[in-house]
């Protein structure tokens, strides 16, 4: 349950349900209203969120819902969810090694579990389980460490034998003479996938209904500061004053930081993904292997959704090199021999912002009133609601939420990194 939105905005939102759908069917669906408004930017806001992806929209939503901050604008240079939100492989899980990460991602997973109802927008959270395969003795040890830690953090996690893996995914090859045989796996049953676009749209609609202005096609070109304080942002639609500015722009974090004279420990890399043509369901969980770099699930439409590896070079081009896909396919067919004759329908790339410790930055900055939320690397989608939730707190209170505190920028100075490379050797 969430608190009631203010009277002024309540009427604007057309409640979604099977009944409203049936009622609208009689009117040939010509009476649906817009899911969110497209207002012109106002001259000033209490908070401007830069970046209309899932994380930015979630931040705006929770600012309004949890902190009563409603004079908020979300500025998006293109279209909502057009960055990594709409380009990832939609995997959700919270099976992280370190306590700090576990707390953050578990908070997010818990929010996900109630999100469709909270937003009144079906984000199609499918908790079909996430399997992480182990292929070497070293993998087994790492897996054991991880599962023990996850369990003691109160999060679900199990270890499966190769036979149990085979039972869960009958098409997987567990023969011991495979080049990298499956020696076991960890399973997070509550993990799964969700519809990525719906997460952005659902947050957008719910934030809008609470009074947040969502402004698309509005690119931030400068961050104005005065005496160490943020004053607002210059945009392609003019200057917008703001008491606080939260930057949530994933791959472009360094570009925005540069506008504020800041440096970040971030590099932007291409990350590619692809889908197959749709086939009848053959795989009912998410299967991940860091060792052979396979990340695969099957959508409800029947497409295999496959994550490839990260390109080594930095790039803002939203495209990677083909050899990454080639390597990916060899590994995939090794694990799933029946996939060889399936066909790649579409490949694409996103820009991931990678931190040296493979953990995000959720932080105040040396500029008063300016906050950054970035560095999610290959795994930001699963964190969307949690990231927005803790960042909203950080922005609203000008102090980090306890879950977010370890992810502050100063950890690179003190050395208190949260090294999740083991978790994210490549992509999620």
């Amino acid at each position: 349950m969430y608190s009631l939105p203010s009277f002024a905005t309540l009427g604007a939102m057309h409640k979604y349900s099977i009944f409203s759908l049936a009622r609208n069917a009689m009117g040939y669906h010509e009476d649906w209203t817009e899911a969110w408004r497209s207002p012109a930017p106002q001259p000033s806001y209490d908070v401007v969120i830069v970046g209309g992806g899932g994380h930015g929209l979630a931040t705006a939503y929770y600012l309004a819902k949890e902190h009563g901050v409603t004079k908020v604008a979300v500025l998006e240079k293109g279209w909502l969810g057009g960055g990594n939100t709409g380009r990832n492989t939609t995997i959700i899980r919270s099976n992280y090694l370190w306590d700090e990460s576990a707390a953050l991602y578990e908070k997010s997973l818990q929010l996900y579990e109630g999100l469709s109802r909270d937003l009144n927008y079906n984000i199609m959270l499918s908790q079909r389980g996430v399997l992480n395969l182990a292929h070497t003795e070293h993998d087994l040890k790492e897996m054991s460490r991880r599962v023990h830690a996850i369990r003691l953090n109160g999060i679900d996690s199990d270890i499966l034998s190769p036979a149990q893996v085979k039972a869960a995914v009958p098409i997987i090859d567990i023969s011991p003479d495979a080049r990298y045989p499956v020696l076991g796996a960890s399973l997070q049953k509550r993990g799964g996938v969700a519809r990525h676009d719906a997460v952005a749209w659902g947050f957008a609609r719910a934030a809008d209904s609470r009074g947040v202005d969502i402004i698309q096609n509005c690119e931030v070109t400068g961050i104005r500061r005065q005496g160490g304080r943020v004053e607002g942002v210059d945009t392609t639609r003019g200057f917008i004053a703001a008491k606080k500015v939260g930057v949530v722009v994933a791959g472009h974090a360094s570009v925005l930081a540069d506008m504020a004279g800041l440096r970040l420990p971030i590099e932007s890399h291409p990350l590619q993904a692809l889908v197959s043509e749709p086939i009848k369901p053959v795989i009912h969980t998410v299967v991940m292997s860091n060792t052979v770099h396979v990340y695969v699930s099957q959508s409800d439409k029947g497409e295999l959704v496959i994550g490839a590896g990260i390109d080594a070079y930095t790039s803002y081009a939203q495209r990677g090199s083909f050899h990454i896909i080639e390597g990916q396919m060899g590994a995939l067919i090794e694990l799933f021999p029946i996939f060889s004759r399936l066909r790649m329908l579409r490949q694409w790339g996103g820009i991931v912002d990678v931190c040296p410790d493979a953990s995000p930055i959720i932080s105040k900055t040396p500029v008063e009133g300016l906050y950054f939320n970035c560095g999610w690397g290959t795994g930001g989608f699963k964190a969307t609601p949690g990231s927005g939730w803790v960042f909203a707190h950080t922005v609203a209170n000008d102090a980090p939420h306890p879950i977010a505190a370890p992810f502050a920028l100063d950890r690179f100075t003190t050395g208190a990194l949260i090294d999740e490379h083991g978790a994210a050797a490549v992509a999620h």
Partner: protein
Amino acid sequence: MTRQQFRLAEGGRIDRDRPLSFRFNGRAYQGYAGDTLASALLANGVHLVGRSFKYHRPRGIFSAGAEEPNAIIQLETGTRSQPDLRATQVELYEGLRAKSVNCWPSVRFDLAAINSRLAPLFPAGFYYKTFMWPGRAWHLYEAVIRRMAGLGVAPTGPDPDRYEKTHIHADVLVAGGGPAGLAAALAAARAGARVILADEQSAFGGQLLGNGESVDGKPGAEWAAAAAAELVDLPDATLLPRTTVIGYFDDNYLTLCERVTDHLGPAAPPELPRQRLWKVRARHVVLATGAHERPLVFQGNDRPGVMLASAAQSYVNRYAVRPGRRAVLCANNDSAYRAALDLQEAGVEIAAIADLRPAPDGAGVEAARAQGIEVLPGQAVVATQGGRHLTGVEIAPLSEDGNALAGPSSTEKCDLLCVSGAWNPAVHLFSQSRGKLRYDEGLACFVPGRSVQAERSAGACNGRFALADCLAEGHAAGTAAAAAAGHGDDSGPVPKAEAEPVGAIRAVPCVPSRSGRANKHFLDLQNDVTAADVALAAREGYRSVEHTKRYTTLGMGTDQGKTSNVTGLSVLAAALGRPVPEVGTTTFRPPYTPVTFGTIAGRDVGDLADPARMTPMHHWHVQVGAVFEDVGQWKRPYCYPRQGESKREAVDRECLAVRNAVGILDASTLGKIDIQGPDARKLLNMVYTNAWNKLEVGRCRYGLMLGEDGMIFDDGVTSRLAEDRYLMTTTTGNAARVLEWLEEWLQTEWPDWRVYCTSVTEQFATMTICGPKARDLLAELVDGLDLDPAAFPFMSWRAAAVAGVPARIFKISFTGENSYEINVPANYGMAVWSAIMNAGEKYGITPFGTEAMHVLRAEKGFIMVGQETDGTITPHDLGMDWAVSKTKDFLGKRSLARADTTRAGRKQLVGLLTEAADAVLPEGGQIVSELARKPPMDMIGHVTSSYYSAALGRSIALALIKGGRDRGGETVHVPLLDGSSIAATVTEPRFYDSEGERLRG
């Protein structure tokens, strides 16, 4: 077997002397060599071939090529089954078996067609609005929805076929072998360029194969064959039929997929790969990818019997098939008229041509009228009739603005409706090359704008639809490309065709219906996206074209919107009241048409998935039954179980043999780097944490390597071979990384230092003999080397012949026993190993694997990088301050002085002894001070290494625990996954021979 009642008696590019039998949906049919599955089905009067994805509406063959949205089939069964192929692209072969996908029990009677009745409940995006009750119940709905997922089915087993890759360079790559592509390839090749011409079809010629136009006075197909023949004879031209250019990447790197044997079916010679991926680096690219005919959007436009006009024309001309008996055409441009004439000549009765344009004229129109064909200007088909096949159409006049009907409709009986909404250039590859598209108002389509790479578009893909223009533009592009690649411009004459002016078109995004609604106006035939869906998306605010696409699934089917994207965009623009270019276009993503995963993987599967590295003694290990583990790419013996022995028993036996007699380990996989030069010592001083100034020739020293972040990333022993020469060893997994690390610093930071680093890992075989009998054993194998510890002390090395082979012997120990690491040239490894095994027999020599090595070193408290370290551990954490210089600088040193690395409470290395001696802690087990009844529990560390120690007769473990060095004697607990726990006492991280007497030998 049914006769081919729609086959023409003559004409076409089929071979009537080679009849082929095939089965579709269980029924036997006959076609001819040269047919596609689609043309053969049409020859037999089969139009209904599939069902749409969402509503399961009946769907017929719509096109004759790659853009087909409807005729999706499953080819063959079993391990060679192939889902989701387009019948329009499957070449017929003897015995072919195919069936429709996504329908049950049959394509004619499909139970899921009930969805069509419920369609009013299922508008675009309906699932976002419902299935939310009760909470978390989505998975129940999802289970039902997943039953409807997918089109075809996956094969039943591993792929029996083989795939290959070819890497090739070209001066000029021509994508597409229609008139423009052929003209370009001819021009470039004649000028002397190295040319690759690829076309997706079995024969070159493109539209010329199906539209009956002439080039240089010859029938088009004949000219194309002659052009291809000339190219074959030119020395530097490579012709690739059945090859689709699928991807255009940076630096003119393109991928092509060649279907080598698919058209042969079971007759495919086994020596050939099934498909081949060509990876081409081209100096210049000519895109001649043609165009796709655009459908028209009107009510009921999805009924079987509705077909693109150019496709109908192709079926008649190329395949000698009448796609119907009585046809209506509906068009907004001139090109449909030629189709009408060809159809009429083939005996198809043309009921009428409804032309959206108020006053069509031009040669085609006049020719049609001359043939007695009724032309209905300003009119359009506004509805269709029929069930599983078209039986008639309603035609009505359009208002001037095209938004309403301007009069009553008339009904025309027909079984074929040919539609033509003009043409969309196939700009996919151009867009992939990052070229900028431009919207052409007159043509109502996107055409190539500014090029970014060395590429030019020619012909229909450039918006030039007249044949003469295609030929001229192709020729010019080929000439220019050859010149740009450094060749001359002697490119021969320009092929000529009759110049036929192309009349204007009339773009009507959505032909109005009598009801005013558009919920049966299909844009995306595969995904059942209607004009009403797009309007709904616009109404609800999903106004970016990407939003519309994602919200409605427009263009996201297996055809990737080849027939629906531009029409959908026009409808969206109309709904938003904005011009098309302002609404934008979606990104064209590779591949152009789907490509099998197998082709992309090529030969990198099975044994070739990743190189397996093996030591010179590998086959010996195999012969004696070793169990292997993967360490990086290396195969290392884990242990050597004897008959009936478990792995644990084998490891125990191997450990005891080392402690009590002598063991031998194949250590060849350790990284070895030969470091030479006057500044070698300087380098060691910077990359290792300890000091190297005083290491004498003949001596060895252990070192830790840190990243600049202060965290341990490798360790190993380095020996001074000579004044300016060292041999560094690294961990097995990090060998390449360490070499690159050294080179990086030398080349980028200290380029004036005179040091050379060379990997010699594979040049030497390394075998370690260790144990109390090791010295006696070695004594038997070496001559003239004093093995007395005084003469050959611990941490030193000597050169000597071992079993007659020159060797370096390193007296270093990872097991805690007196130990000799013998390095011999790799080619002699097996011989020396055999000699040691023979001589060692009387000492009870026992080969031991990595696991025994791990146990033995853990008994000694020696760390393993990757086990006691994980990228977050400093030397201090491990209690290895003795290996860290306080005086000199080294990489990572400054990071050791930061707030977090100096704070109290960091995890520190300790030993753990379980209270129950036989309880072995799980490696990776988490440690708590106090047990709670259930999680969460506060973790203070984790078990890094844990074994049963046969030598000690009890379990031992190493662990990293917060403030561990101050917790000696404390009892801690390791909760297990089954809910129980093991208690253990914190100890020093050394369990065996803590004084180190044994290893000094």
